[in-house]
C-alpha cells in the first residue's frame, strides 16, 4: 500500500480540523463550518477545473464536516469523479466518501457501480481491494444485486491475488448476510470449499468465515468441508510454533484460524469416516495436551490465544458428545480453571461445565468438582460468575447429591443477589421436587424456601407444594405439623400463610390431637396473621375457616363470631364480603352431614408436568433450556401420567385456552366467563336457594358457585381445558363445576356431519336430544336449536350459553335469547341463534348446556355447526372463465391441496349432492375430464368477499378400498383455502 507522504498530507485539512478543535463554543464551530462550506462551494462551482489533490482535500473536509454531524448536500459528484482517478489516495478518499455518505440516489448509484465495475475488472490488486471494501461497507441490496454474481468469480479465479481473495471472501459474506437470496453459490460451492486448502493462511481465515455462514444455511452442500477442515486443523496443531511465521501469535500457531475451524466443525455431526475422525480426535487430544504444557510466554496474549483454542475444542467435544475419554479430560482441564485468577476464565469454565454436566459420559466427572463450585458460589466476587456457578450446580444435581446441593443453594439464597433470586428459588423448587426421596424433606425444603425468600416464590411453587401434599397421604400429617410450626414465627411471609391456611384447612385434624396444636390454637394462629394479608390470602383464609368448622365443630362459635364481625361481613371488598356472608349462612343453616359433603377433603390432583419447570423455561426463553431438561420433563411426565403426550397436549391446550389465567385465583375469584352473556349471578341464586330453606339442601349447596373454589383443585392455567372429558364424567357429583365442560370428544365429528347439510339432529343421549334447523343468506344466518327432554322428569335450571373461543368473537357475531329454565318431561324448547359472519374463521363456536336432572348437574359442551362454507354464494361460470380465474389464483399460499382415501367408495351422485350441499355451484362441462368435479362460489363475510374455486379429482378406476381423491382449493385468501380443504376432506 503506498504510504501517504508528508507532502501529500493535505495541510488545509489539518488546519481546518485544528481550527474546529480550538473553537470555544458550538456557535464558533458552526461559524467556522459555514465559512468552510462556502469556500468549498465556491471551489466546486462548475466553471473551475480542480486538480485531483484539491478535489480530494475538499471531499475530505466535507466528510469531516459530515462526521461532525452536519448535513452535506453537495460534493457527491466530485467524490464519484475521484473514483476514476489513478492515484491510490484519491481513489481511497472517493470510496471512503461514498461508503459513508451514499444514499440510494439513482443517478449516482449508476455512476458508482460503473466505477466499481471498472476497478474490479482492472488487474490492479489495490484497486480491486478498494472496490470490494466499498461494496462490503455499503452492503446495500442494490450493491448485492449489481455484484453478487461477480464476486464469487473473483474469489475462485486462479489468477487472483491472495489479498484480493481475502477481501472478496469477506465481501461476499457481508452481501450474503444482507440478502441471502441474491448470493447463489451453486456451481462455486466446491471451489469455495477448496479454498480451505489454500496456501495463504489469510485466505483460509477469510474463506472459513464465509463457509461457516453458508454451511449453517445449507449444511449438505458444504459437507465436504469437514474433512478438509480436519486436515487443515491437524496441520496447524501439529506444526511447531515457528512454522507459520506471520501467523504465529505469541507462540500460538494461527489461533484465529484454529478457533474458526473448530467452530465450523461444530456445525456438523462427528465425521463418519473413521480415518478423518481418528485424525480429529488426535487433534483434539493434542490441543488438550498443549494446554497442559507450561506456558511459553508470561504474556497474557499467549495464554488468551491458547485458552481460546482450548475452549473452542471443548465446545466441539461437547457438541460431539461421543468420546467419553475426551469429555472426561475436558472436564478435568476445566476443573483447573475453576480456581483461576482470571474472572473470565472462571466464568467460561463454569459455563462449559454446565453443558458437560448434561452429557452422560462426563456427568460423573463434573460431579467431582462439586466442592469447588459450591465454594465459588459462596466466595466469588463477580455476580455473573456466581450465576453460572448456580446454573452448574443445578445442572450437576442428581439423586446422589441433591440434598447437599439443595442445602447449599438454600443457604446461599439468604445472601444471593436480588437479580438471580427468583431463578434460584425456581431451581431449588424444581430440584427439591425432582430428586425428593422422602416427601417430608421436600416439604421442609419448600417451607424453608418460602421463609428465606418468600418474595421470590412465585405462585407456581406453592401451588405445587399443595398439589403434592394433597396427593400424598403419607406426608400430610408431617406437612400440617411443619406449617404449624413455621407459622409460629412472629413474622412470616404471606406465601407461608397461604400454604399454612390451605394445609391446616385440609389436614389440621391430623395434628389436632396434640394439645399444643389444638383446633382453637390452630385457628388463633391463622387468624393472628389475617389482618396483615392481602385480599386473595384473606379469601383463602376464610375458606380455611369454614373448613375448620367442618373439621372441628367445637370451633364453630368462635369462627362464626369472626365471620359475623363487621370487618368481614361488611368488608368493602366484594369477594371477602360474599365469602363471609355465605360461609356464615352455610355454617348456621346446613346440617353437619351437608357440611361434611360440601367441605370434603380435596380430591387428588391429576398429575401433570410440573408447572414450575414450565415457568423456568418461560423465564429463560426458548433455546436457553438445555435439551436434557426438556427430556427430563418428558420422561417424568411419562412416568407420572402414563404418557408423555398428555403433558404436551395439555400444554398446547393451555395456549389455546381462552380463560384468563387464574394465577391469583387458586381459591378465589372465579374466572370471568369467556362469553359476553353473563351467567346468572351466583349471589342472587344463593338468595333463592336459601329462601327455600333446607328443602333441597343438596341441590342448594351444589348450586352455589362459591364452593366450587374449594372443590376445584388449584389449577394453573393449563388445566381447564386439558382435563379430559373422562374426568368430568367420572367425577363424583360434588366435583362437577359450573365451568363449561370441555367439548365432547365427538364434537368435532358432529360438526363434520353438518358441513354439507343444514338440518338434522346435532346430539342425542339418554336424556337430551338437540335438533338443528338453519338457513343462511349472504353473510347472515339463523339457526334454530331444539332441545328435547327425552325423559319423563323435568329438567331444572336449564341454561345454554353460546361462546366463541379464541379469536372467534372478532370473526363471528352470535346472538341468542335465553331459554326457559324448565323443560317438562317429553317437551321440547326452541332457541334461535342469529349469526353474522364478520370475516373468515376457523374455529366453531361452542354451545354449553347445563341443567339438573334429578339433582345431578349435567354439563355438556358441543360445537355449533357453523362453518365457513355456510356463507357460500354459488357462482355459475363457463369453462374458459373458470380456468382464467383458476390461473389468477396461482400463488402457492392461495392454494390448498389434499390427497386422501375415499371413505365410502366413489359414488358420483352422492359426491354431487354433497358438493351442492356445501353451498357452491357445481359446474358441468368445465373440466376436460368429465369425472372431475369443479365448483365455484363466493364466501360472503361482512369484511370482504372471498372467491373460491374447487376441483375434486377421483381416481375411480382404482380398486375399491384404494380409491383416492385429490382435492384442490384455490381462493383469494389462504386461510379460507386451508380451512375449506380441511372441512371437505372429511366429507368423502
Amino acid at each position, binding site marked *: 500500500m503506498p504510504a501517504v507522504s508528508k507532502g501529500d498530507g493535505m495541510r488545509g485539512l489539518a488546519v481546518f480540523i485544528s481550527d474546529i478543535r480550538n473553537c470555544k463554543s*458550538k456557535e464558533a464551530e458552526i461559524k*467556522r463550518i459555514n*465559512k468552510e*462550506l462556502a469556500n468549498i*462551494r465556491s471551489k466546486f*462551482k462548475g466553471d473551475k477545473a480542480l486538480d485531483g489533490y484539491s478535489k480530494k482535500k475538499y471531499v475530505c473536509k466535507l466528510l469531516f464536516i459530515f462526521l461532525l454531524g452536519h448535513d452535506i448536500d*453537495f460534493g457527491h459528484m466530485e467524490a464519484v469523479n475521484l473514483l476514476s482517478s489513478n492515484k491510490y489516495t484519491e481513489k481511497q478518499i472517493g470510496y471512503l466518501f461514498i461508503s459513508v455518505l451514499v444514499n440510494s440516489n439513482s443517478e449516482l448509484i449508476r455512476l458508482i457501480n460503473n466505477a466499481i465495475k471498472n476497478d474490479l475488472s482492472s488487474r490492479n490488486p489495490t484497486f480491486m481491494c478498494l472496490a470490494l471494501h466499498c461494496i462490503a461497507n455499503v452492503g446495500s441490496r442494490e450493491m448485492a444485486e449489481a455484484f453478487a454474481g461477480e464476486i464469487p468469480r473473483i474469489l475462485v479465479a486462479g489468477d487472483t491475488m491472495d489479498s484480493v481473495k481475502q477481501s472478496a471472501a469477506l465481501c461476499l459474506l457481508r452481501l450474503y448476510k444482507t440478502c441471502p437470496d441474491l448470493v447463489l453459490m451453486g456451481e462455486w460451492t466446491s471451489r469455495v470449499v477448496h479454498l480451505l486448502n489454500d496456501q495463504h493462511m489469510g485466505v483460509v481465515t477469510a474463506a472459513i468465515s464465509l463457509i461457516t455462514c453458508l454451511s449453517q444455511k445449507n449444511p449438505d452442500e458444504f459437507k465436504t468441508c469437514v474433512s478438509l477442515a480436519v486436515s487443515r486443523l491437524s496441520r496447524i496443531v501439529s506444526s511447531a510454533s515457528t512454522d507459520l511465521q506471520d501467523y504465529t501469535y505469541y507462540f500460538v500457531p494461527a489461533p484465529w484460524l484454529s478457533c474458526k475451524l473448530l467452530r465450523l466443525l461444530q456445525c456438523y455431526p462427528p465425521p463418519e469416516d473413521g480415518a478423518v475422525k481418528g485424525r480429529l480426535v488426535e487433534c483434539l487430544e493434542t490441543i488438550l495436551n498443549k494446554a497442559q504444557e507450561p506456558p511459553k510466554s508470561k504474556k497474557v496474549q499467549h495464554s488468551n490465544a491458547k485458552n481460546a483454542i482450548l475452549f473452542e475444542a471443548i465446545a466441539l467435544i461437547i457438541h460431539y458428545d461421543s468420546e467419553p475419554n475426551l469429555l472426561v479430560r475436558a472436564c478435568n482441564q476445566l476443573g483447573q480453571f475453576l480456581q483461576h485468577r482470571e474472572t473470565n476464565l472462571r466464568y467460561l469454565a463454569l459455563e462449559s461445565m454446565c453443558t458437560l454436566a448434561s452429557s452422560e459420559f462426563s456427568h460423573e466427572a463434573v460431579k467431582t468438582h462439586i466442592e469447588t463450585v459450591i465454594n465459588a458460589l459462596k466466595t466469588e466476587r463477580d455476580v455473573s460468575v456466581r450465576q453460572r456457578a448456580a446454573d452448574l450446580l443445578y445442572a450437576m444435581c442428581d439423586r446422589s447429591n441433591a440434598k447437599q446441593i439443595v442445602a447449599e443453594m438454600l443457604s446461599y439464597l439468604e445472601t444471593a443477589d436480588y437479580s438471580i433470586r427468583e431463578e434460584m428459588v425456581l431451581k431449588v423448587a424444581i430440584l427439591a421436587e425432582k430428586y425428593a426421596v422422602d416427601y417430608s424433606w421436600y416439604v421442609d425444603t419448600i417451607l424453608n424456601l418460602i421463609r428465606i425468600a418468600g418474595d421470590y416464590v412465585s405462585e407456581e411453587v406453592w401451588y405445587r407444594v399443595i398439589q403434592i401434599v394433597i396427593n400424598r397421604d403419607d406426608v400430610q400429617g408431617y406437612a400440617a405439623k411443619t406449617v404449624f410450626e413455621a407459622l409460629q414465627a412472629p413474622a412470616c411471609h404471606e406465601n407461608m400463610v397461604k400454604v399454612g391456611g390451605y394445609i391446616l384447612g385440609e389436614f389440621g385434624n391430623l395434628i389436632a390431637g396434640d394439645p399444643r396444636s389444638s383446633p382453637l390454637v390452630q385457628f388463633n394462629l391463622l387468624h393472628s396473621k389475617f389482618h396483615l394479608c392481602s385480599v386473595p390470602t384473606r379469601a383463602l383464609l376464610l375458606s380455611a375457616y369454614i373448613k375448620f368448622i367442618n373439621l372441628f365443630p367445637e370451633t364453630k362459635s368462635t369462627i362464626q363470631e369472626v365471620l359475623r364481625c363487621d370487618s368481614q361481613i361488611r368488608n368493602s371488598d366484594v369477594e371477602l364480603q360474599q365469602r363471609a356472608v355465605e360461609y356464615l349462612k352455610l355454617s348456621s343453616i346446613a346440617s353437619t352431614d351437608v357440611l361434611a359433603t360440601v367441605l370434603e377433603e380435596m380430591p387428588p390432583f391429576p398429575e401433570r408436568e410440573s408447572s414450575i419447570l414450565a415457568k423456568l423455561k418461560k423465564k429463560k426463553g426458548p433455546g436457553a433450556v438445555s435439551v436434557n431438561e426438556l427430556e427430563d420433563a418428558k420422561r417424568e411426565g411419562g412416568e407420572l401420567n402414563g404418557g408423555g403426550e398428555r403433558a404436551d397436549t395439555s400444554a398446547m391446550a393451555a395456549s389455546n385456552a381462552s380463560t384468563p389465567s387464574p394465577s391469583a385465583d387458586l381459591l378465589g375469584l372465579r374466572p370471568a366467563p369467556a362469553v359476553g352473556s353473563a351467567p346468572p349471578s351466583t349471589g342472587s341464586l344463593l338468595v333463592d336457594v336459601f329462601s327455600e330453606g333446607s328443602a333441597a339442601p343438596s341441590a342448594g349447596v351444589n348450586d352455589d358457585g362459591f364452593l366450587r373454589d374449594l372443590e376445584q383443585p388449584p389449577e394453573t392455567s393449563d388445566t381447564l381445558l386439558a382435563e379430559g372429558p373422562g374426568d368430568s364424567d367420572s367425577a363424583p357429583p360434588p366435583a362437577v363445576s359450573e365451568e363449561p365442560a370441555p367439548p365432547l370428544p365427538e364434537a368435532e365429528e358432529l360438526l363434520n356431519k353438518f358441513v354439507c347439510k343444514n338440518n338434522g339432529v346435532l346430539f342425542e343421549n339418554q336424556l337430551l336430544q338437540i335438533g338443528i334447523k338453519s338457513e343462511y343468506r349472504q353473510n347472515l344466518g339463523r339457526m334454530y336449536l331444539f332441545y328435547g327432554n327425552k325423559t319423563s322428569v323435568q329438567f331444572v335450571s336449564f341454561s345454554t350459553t353460546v361462546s366463541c373461543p379464541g379469536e372467534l368473537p372478532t370473526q363471528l357475531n352470535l346472538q341468542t335469547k335465553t331459554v326457559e329454565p324448565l323443560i317438562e318431561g317429553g317437551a321440547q324448547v326452541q332457541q334461535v341463534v342469529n349469526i353474522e359472519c364478520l370475516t373468515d374463521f376457523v374455529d366453531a363456536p361452542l354451545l354449553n348446556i347445563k341443567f339438573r336432572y334429578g339433582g345431578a348437574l349435567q354439563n355438556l359442551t358441543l360445537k355449533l355447526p357453523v362453518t365457513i362454507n355456510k356463507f357460500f354464494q354459488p357462482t355459475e361460470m363457463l369453462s374458459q372463465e373458470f380456468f382464467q380465474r383458476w390461473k389468477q389464483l396461482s400463488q402457492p399460499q392461495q392454494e390448498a391441496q389434499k390427497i386422501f382415501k375415499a371413505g365410502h367408495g366413489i359414488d358420483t351422485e352422492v359426491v354431487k349432492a354433497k358438493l351442492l350441499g356445501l353451498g357452491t355451484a357445481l359446474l358441468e362441462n368445465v373440466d376436460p375430464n368429465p369425472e372431475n368435479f369443479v365448483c365455484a362460489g363466493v364466501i360472503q363475510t361482512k369484511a370482504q368477499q372471498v372467491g373460491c374455486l374447487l376441483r375434486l379429482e377421483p381416481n375411480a378406476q382404482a380398486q375399491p378400498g384404494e380409491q383416492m381423491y385429490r382435492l384442490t382449493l384455490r381462493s383469494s385468501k389462504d386461510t379460507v383455502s386451508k380451512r375449506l380443504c380441511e372441512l371437505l376432506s372429511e366429507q368423502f
Partner: protein
Amino acid sequence: MIGGLFIYNHKGEVLISRVYRDDIGRNAVDAFRVNVIHARQQVRSPVTNIARTSFFHVKRANIWLAAVTKQNVNAAMVFEFLYKMCDVMTAYFGKISEENIKNNFVLIYELLDEILDFGYPQNSETGALKTFITQQGIKGQHQTKEEQSQITSQVTGQIGWRREGIKYRRNELFLDVLESVNLLMSPQGQVLSAHVSGRVVMKSYLSGMPECKFGMNDKIVIDKQGKGGTTDEAGKSELGGSSGKQSIAIDDCTFHQCVRLSKFDSERSISFIPPDGEYELMRYRTTKDIILPFRVIPLVREVGRTKLEVKVVIKSNFKPSLLAQKIEVSIPTPLNTSGVQVICMKGKAKYKASENAIVWKIKRMAGMKESQISAEIELLPTNDKKKWARPPISMNFEVPFAPSGLKVRYLKVFESKLNYSDHDVIKWVRYIGRSGIYETRC
C-alpha cells in the same frame, strides 16, 4: 428555595460550586454538565428537570450560571436572582469571563455567602454590598466600631439600599431611558408583531437621604390630571400635543425595590429614596403606537436554479434632525451560495460566509432618508430538493429617542434635612432607542 449554585466555563468545567442545602448532592454538578452543556441537541429551555432536580440557567458569554433546587420554587424569583447576581459580579470585577471568575473566586464565594442564605436571596444591592464586601477584604482595624454597627443597622434596617451620611459637593443625577424595539414585519410592510421593552436607569450622586419623585407621560396620569386639573393645565397639554403624542399606554412595569409601591398603587406616582450610584429604577413594556425608526423593503428574485437577485431598501422614519447610528442590516443567503456580488450606495456591505448572510453596515443615517443595496447571489446546484426557508432580514441600530414615545416630565428631589433644593440638583436626561429583534420577512 435554591439548593445550590454552580458556575461553569464553556467546556463544562466547574468554576464555582456553592451548595446551600443537603438535598443537592455532588452528582447534580455532573448531571447539569452532561444533560445541558454537553447535550447533543442544544438545550433551549432555561429550566431543565433532571431526576427530580430543577436546574435554572443563564448564560453570559461563555459562562454558565446554574441554580439548582429540588423544591418547587418560584422560577421568576430564581431568574431574577441570577440576573441580579450577574449585575453584582459585573459591578465588582467588570465583564463576566472565565478569567475574571477565576481571579475573583474568593470574592465570589464571599458574595454568595452574603446574597444567599440557606437558599433564600438576601440583600443584593451592589451599593450596600460594597460597604462591607470590598475587593481588598475587610480590614478590621480600619473600620471603627461605629461604622460596623452602622452596617448592621443599615442592612437590617428599613432602607437597606442606602446608607446614611452620604455627602457630595455637587448634587447630580443622570437619567437614561433605554428602549429596545422589537418588530416582525411581512414582506408587504404589514406589522405582524411589535413591542418596546424599556428601562429607566438612574445614576444618582445626591447627599443625605433625598426623597425623589419621578413623572412621565403615562396615559393614566395625564388623563387623570386632564379631568381633575385646571383649564390652565389642559391648555398646556394641548400645546404639548402639537409636538407629538402626549401620553403613552404602558402595558406593564416593574420597579426597583426603593419605589414605594403603595403610593404607586393609590396615586400612580413614583416616589422613592434612591440608592447611591447606578441602578435600574423601572422596567416597562409598551405595544401600542410604536414609532418604528426604520422600514425595510426587500425584493428577492430567483433567476433559474443557480442565481438569486436581492434588492433591499431601508427608509429612516424619524425627524430629519436626528441621527441614527450603528446601523447593520443582515440579509440571509441560501445555504448553497457559491458566490456573491454586492453593490450599495452607502456604507459597506460584505458577504459573511460564516453567518450565511450579507452584512451591510452604515455608520450614520439622518431621518427621512433612504438607502439601498442590491446583490447577485450565485448558487451551487444541489441534489437536495429542500427549498430554502428564507429567513427574515434582521436589523440593528441605535437612535437618540424613545420609540415608545415615553417622555420624562419631571424628576423632583426633596431633601428636608440638608440645605439643598430641587433647583440645586443638576439633572441629565438621555433617550436611547436600540433594536431588539427587528426583522422583516422577505
